[in-house]
Structures are given as C-alpha cells and as structure tokens.
C-alpha cells in the first residue's frame, strides 16, 4: 500500500517536471502577482513592507488554484482515475498522495521562495522568516481544501472557474490566520504562536476533511 502511494506521488512529480506539466509555472505566477501588486498600489516601501505578508499570502492562494483544475481531470481523461477507484488502496489515501504531490510542486516551492520575493516587498528578515514559516504550514490547507473542488469538477470540461468559486470562500480562515500569524511575528499584541498553531490545526483538519470529501466526490461521480 505504501509503495502504491509512493508510486502515485512519484508519478505526479514526474508529470509536473515534464514538458506540458505545471511544475514551476505556479512559482512564475506567484512572482508575477508579487510584481503586479506594487505597480497597482505604488512603490511606497513603507506601505509595501506593512502589507507584504498579505500580498504574499494572497499570491499563494491564487497560485495554488491555477494547477488544481487538472489535479483529477487529467487522470479522468487518461483513465488512471478509474484504476485508482478500482485499486485496493483506500481512495482517501490515494487522494492524499495526489494532494501531497500537488503541494510538493506548488506550496513547498512558494514557501521556500517567499523570503526571496519578500525582498521585493521590503520585508524585514524577521517578517520573511515568519511568512515563509506560515506558508510552509498553511499551504497544505489550501491544497487539501482545493482538492475537494478539484474532485467535484473532475468531469467538467471547463471546471476551472467553478472550482475557484467553490473553494475560495472555504480558504478564508486559512488566509486570516496565515496573515495574522505573519503579522504577529513583526509586532502586535498577539503572540506569534497562537495564530500559528491555529493555522497548523486548520491544515490538519483540511487534510482529513479534504481527503474524505474528495474521495466521496470521486466515488459519487464514478
């Protein structure tokens, strides 16, 4: 069973790295958003450093969304989803493996590159570290919440828009606690650990709820 799951993760990573895969593109999209926002609000470094964590978090939410619509759709098209449905490995674990692969190609690179992009937004080193840490524990929640939407729209030809509309309201709590933890690290009345631990809890809850709901959605439609 473990070997099956590792194989699924490995396969998705391979596909992401190939030509036509989405690996790296979400990072480019992330950089694009971080570049666009200062153009829109003006290059005031004080303002940017104050809202920098929020910009990075918003960019992370949007970059997570762009790869999601193909998460199950591609498997549905080439028939591998039918094999996953028929396999002995519980579907809940299979979708967790799929989600993990998605996170490894989007959430993790974003969290690791956030300090670099923080330079563009004039973040202090402390703030960079805080944003990076919150993205590291918070982006799994985004992936697993989004996974439910991806499973629900797997059989739709144009599921991207409806997917975003479905999952973005559910990402609000993650965004709130992610930004408030990042903000708490650079000053404020709340200690950093309080929102940070809630963020960890949201990620763990999203892992369970997302896996169960996504598996249910794939089974219901299959």
């Amino acid at each position, binding site marked *: 069973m473990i070997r099956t799951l590792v194989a699924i993760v490995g396969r998705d990573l391979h596909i992401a790295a190939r030509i036509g895969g989405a690996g790296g593109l979400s990072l480019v999209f992330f950089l694009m958003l971080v570049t666009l926002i200062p153009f829109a609000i003006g290059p005031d470094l004080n303002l940017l450093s104050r809202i920098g964590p929020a910009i990075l978090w918003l960019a992370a939410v949007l970059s997570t969304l762009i790869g999601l619509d193909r998460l199950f759709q591609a498997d549905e098209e080439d028939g591998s989803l039918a094999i996953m449905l028929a396999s002995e490995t519980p579907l809940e674990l299979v979708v967790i493996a799929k989600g993990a692969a998605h996170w490894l190609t989007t959430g993790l690179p974003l969290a690791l590159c956030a300090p670099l992009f923080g330079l563009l937004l004039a973040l202090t080193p402390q703030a960079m570290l805080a944003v990076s840490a919150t993205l590291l524990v918070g982006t799994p929640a985004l992936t697993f919440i989004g996974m*439910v939407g991806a499973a*629900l729209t797997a059989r739709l030809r144009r599921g991207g828009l409806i997917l975003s509309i479905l999952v973005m*309201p*559910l990402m609000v*709590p993650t965004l709130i606690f992610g930004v408030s933890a990042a903000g708490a690290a650079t000053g404020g009345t709340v200690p950093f650990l309080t929102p940070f631990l809630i963020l960890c809890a949201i990620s763990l809850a999203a892992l369970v*709820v997302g896996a169960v709901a996504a598996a*249910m*959605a794939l089974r*219901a*439609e299959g």
Partner: protein
Amino acid sequence: MAENNSILTALANPTRFLALSARVLPWMAGLSAVLLAVGLWLVFFQVPDDYQQGATVRIMYIHVPAAWLSLFLYAMMTGSAIGTLVWRHPLADVAQKAAAPIGAAFTLLCLVTGSIWGKPMWGTWWVWDARLTSELVLLLIYLGIIGLWRAIEEPSAAARAVAIMTLVGFVNIPIVKFSVDWWNTLHQPASVFRLGGSTIDASMLWPLLVMAAGFTLLAVSLHLSGMRTEILRRRVRALSLLEAQQRERAPVAAVVAPGVAR
C-alpha cells in the same frame, strides 16, 4: 422516529408529493401573507421607537428574520444533502436545489438591510466585522452551490456533487452563528435566544416573532413551490429526451409500417 420515517418514505413518491403540496401550499402562502401583514402593521404603527436608535430600529424586523432564514435554509440544505448521500431519498436533491436560491436571496436581504441599518447607527455601510464577513462568505458559498448546480448537466450527478459541497460548506454555519460570541465585535451579540431569557423588551419581541413566523412560512411556501417546479421541470426534461429518442427511431418504423408510424 418510525412514524417520521414512514412519512418521509410516503413523500418519496413525487406524484404524491405534488398532490399533497398542492393542497398545503395555498394555506401556507395565505397564512404567511396574513402574518406578514399583521407583522408589518405592528412594526410600522404599534412598535415604539427605540430610545437610542429611533425609527431605524424597525429595520430589525426585516433584518433579523432574514438572517435566521439564511442559516435555517442552509441547515435544511445540509439535511437534504445527507438525505441525498445516505438515504438516496429521491426528493432530497430536489429540496436542496430549490432551497439554494431562496437561501441566497435571504442572505442578500440580510446583508442589504444590515448595511442600510449600519449607515445611521455605526456610521458606515460596511465593516469587516466577524459576523458581517462570515455572512458574506455564506452568500459566496450559496452562489458557488448554485453555480455548481448549473455547471453539471446530469441532475443526479449534480445532486451528489452539490451535496458534498454543501456538507463541506456547513463549517461556516457555526462560525456565523457564534461569531458574535467568540469575537468581541461591532455587531451586537445574540439577544433573543440566549441563556437567561431574551434581552429585548416584550413590546419589540412579539412583533419580531410574528415577522419571523411570517418570513419562515414565506420561505417554506417558496421552497415548496420551487420543489414543485423542479419536479415538473425534470418531468419535462425526461419527456423531451424520450421524444427525441422516438424521433430517432421513427424513420425505421416508417419503412417497416408506413401506415402506423406517426
């Protein structure tokens, strides 16, 4: 419970549901109209002005029932979602589909009246307060669910997808309900249903309850007629699919027996 189950089973027959709802619906709609008329009369001519808020307090009699119903209809959709997924009740998804636009409408009504009330009282149309924000998120979830209904063509597949989405979205409901107790916000905490009795004066509470009853009956009447429309719409869809199939076969029949074929 056994009796309750048998009622639900009896209602599983759409024809029986249509017959029963046709008999109940005029009474409910009529009662709702009477209650709303009495309630509005009470609100505009009987209720005293609030000592702080003046006449604007009358907005409450629309705002609060709409807020209750926005949650009530979502809770009902969640019940229907469980009915769809667990018991495969044939009318559960019809109930769910009919409830979504009504719930969205009441949520919007709640937000709009709240905004109109907020301008004179708080001095702003909108604040990013926990309850306002979570109610707005509720509206977005309603809209997403309606969008998902419209995105999937096959009704039974759409029903299951929407049911799962509804269950996942239900996490927002306790947040809306308890947001004013958990966070100390601009929006006032619950004052009607609370431990230790209501903090609203009886002269204001009774009209509110009349309005709430009228609104609830209005929502149920709208919901029943929405369900009836949906059942009929599905019948029309099934019939037109059948007709299309027969049209395809017709030329063959014409060759075999020209006189019989239509």
